């Protein structure tokens, strides 16, 4: 389907001026592919599996042609059988390998919840640390062109509730590579949820092998009036909102969390202590998910500094509709973040 029609190419703002010397810009899928390439070259135990990783489109470009370079022993197609294959990946990890298991969509992870939640997330704890599961599970949230209810779910709200899993959601090419390398190096189960729209990004990515640490958010724009907390594609939207707000004289601070488990509580609380106002934006359903947890965190630990109610920008509580007019109503983004921020700044008891 013509994804090109869904989102145009997007040139990331340069969040990394510091590194003048090397400003190589690559696309988002190239960034991920480079991380995999380097990990495969570095460690024989790393392998890449998943339905379609070796097909011509190679996971939207993220795995393209890696099987040609590393062979079908290390980069291979799998049966659908998602739950079984997840258990197989866990077993391979226990046997000393480092599997990276790709899925087109998070929707398919629902078939794997038994192995992910009942097994992978508990294996180290349940056995008193005698074993551990270095497993990376990757899936890309779909959006647009009528992807509809079963091909567009943003399920981070589910995984954020599960102790024993790490949950990663990059928003820039730089982070996509660095977080993937950190995930493969990690000794525990890590879920990376990408967003289809990020694949249109082009941004700064160093050629060297580097890791972006888990549990460390980043301030994309400093500000004093209101805090915008977001992840993945919503971080891009929130950043645009922050720039818009600046034009209106509202000085917003924009935070990209990068990982949800572990969660960088400090960066959120520090910012709210300064601004007293919080907007949280997530691509998932509003109820019972990511925005709820972060709002609760602040209501619990940041209450004294809150000058206004917390605002949550999340998807309405319905499955994703196929029709584009309904998609328009379903998907939140820059306008809603903007609106929420304005309301908070104008809010008085």
């Amino acid at each position, binding site marked *: 389907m013509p994804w090109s029609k869904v989102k145009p190419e997007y040139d990331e703002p340069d969040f990394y001026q510091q590194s003048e010397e090397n400003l190589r810009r690559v696309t988002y899928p190239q960034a991920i592919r480079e991380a995999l390439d380097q990990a495969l070259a570095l460690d024989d135990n790393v392998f890449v599996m998943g339905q379609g990783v070796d097909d011509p489109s190679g996971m939207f470009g993220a795995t393209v042609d890696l099987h040609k370079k590393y062979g079908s022993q290390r980069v291979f197609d799998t049966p659908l059988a998602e739950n079984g294959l997840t258990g197989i990946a866990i077993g391979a990890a226990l046997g000393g390998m480092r599997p990276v298991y790709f899925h087109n969509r998070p929707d398919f992870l629902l078939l794997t919840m038994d192995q992910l939640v009942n097994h992978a997330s508990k294996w180290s704890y349940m056995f008193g640390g005698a074993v551990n599961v270095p497993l990376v599970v990757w899936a890309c949230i779909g959006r647009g062109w009528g992807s509809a209810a079963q091909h567009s779910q943003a399920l981070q709200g589910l995984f954020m509730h599960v102790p024993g899993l790490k949950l990663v959601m990059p928003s820039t090419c730089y982070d996509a590579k660095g977080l993937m390398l950190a995930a493969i190096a990690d000794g525990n189960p890590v879920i990376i949820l990408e967003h289809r729209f990020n694949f249109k990004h082009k941004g700064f990515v160093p050629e060297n092998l580097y890791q972006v640490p888990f549990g460390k958010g980043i301030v994309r724009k400093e500000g004093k009036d209101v805090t915008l907390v977001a992840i993945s594609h919503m971080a891009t939207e929130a950043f645009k909102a922050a720039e818009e707000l600046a034009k209106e004289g509202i000085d917003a601070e924009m935070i990209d969390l990068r990982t949800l488990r572990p969660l960088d509580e400090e960066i959120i609380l520090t910012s709210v202590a300064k601004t007293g106002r919080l907007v949280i934006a997530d691509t998932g359903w509003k109820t019972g998910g990511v925005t709820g947890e972060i709002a609760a965190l602040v209501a619990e630990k940041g209450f004294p500094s809150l000058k206004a109610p917390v605002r949550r920008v999340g998807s309405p509580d319905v499955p994703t509709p196929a029709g584009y007019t*309904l998609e328009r109503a379903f998907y939140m983004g820059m306008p809603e973040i903007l609106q929420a921020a304005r309301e908070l700044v104008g809010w008085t008891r």
Partner: protein
Amino acid sequence: MNLPREILINLFHEMLRIHKVQLRIESLYHLDEMKTPIHLCIGQEAVAVGVCAHLRKDDYITSNHRGHGHFLAKGGDLKAMIAELYCKETGCSKGRGGSMHLVDVAVGHFGSSSIVSGGIPIGTGLGFAIKRQKQQRVSVIFFSDGAADEGVLYESVNFAILKELPVIFVYENNQFSVCSHISSRQWGELIFHAIPREKMFTQIVDGNSIMDVFEVAKIAVDRARQDQGPSLIECKTYRMRGHAGSGSDAKLGYRTAEEIAAWEAKCPVTLFRHQLLSEQVLTEQEIAEMDRDIEAEIEAAFRFAQESALPREEDLPLYLFKE
């Protein structure tokens, strides 16, 4: 098998109709007015038609992402299907489902899942409902080789036999799941063919031969209707177009041009057309009339779809629950 003329003509008409609907969708898809991922069933027309020919309006089917043929063969409303592809309020799913999520309860189509294998246990459960309510109905489940990778097929087959359900598993083996050949996903033949015939009737047929499919499907449907238990029919066939979207995908190189050409020569519609002509069941002219009528019907369906209204944004919350 010697069949009455009207049955032969009807089988051909149904296949031709599905084929032409697919071609029309394909020819218009590049306009980007159908903003939904399409999965064309060109090359697989005989499976849906050969099986559904034995079904009554109140029999059930469950289908998958490649479900246009199943929907039409079961008697689903063409206008409503095309309108669904245009994501219109008049669509069979009111524009909420799109191409992968068709439904038409009036003809026993309870919805297609785009989760591969998702419809298999659901169709089995429909068979369970039939049995419990002592109806003479049949539940047919359409799935392909990717779905056969999934353990839920094993669970569903076991339950269908255990409870002797009037369920027919129709395995459209087109050998590919997206670009993965079945041999990279399964060790060999589907193991369920080893199940004793008295427990479950299973057979492998040429899925591009409407006569073969029709013949074997009859055995399975009669069996189910007489409460003699489930069946599994594996139809060896081939997807002529790319996995999704329109046009050939030969350029991708995961299958050879020769292979595609070889199957092109086995187009179920063309083969049957030649048979009916040579056996003088139909004349070129009769077929030409058929073409015209079908084209007109398709024309009307697309006009209906294009002229229909889009869902209103304020209606987003509707239909989450039955009140």
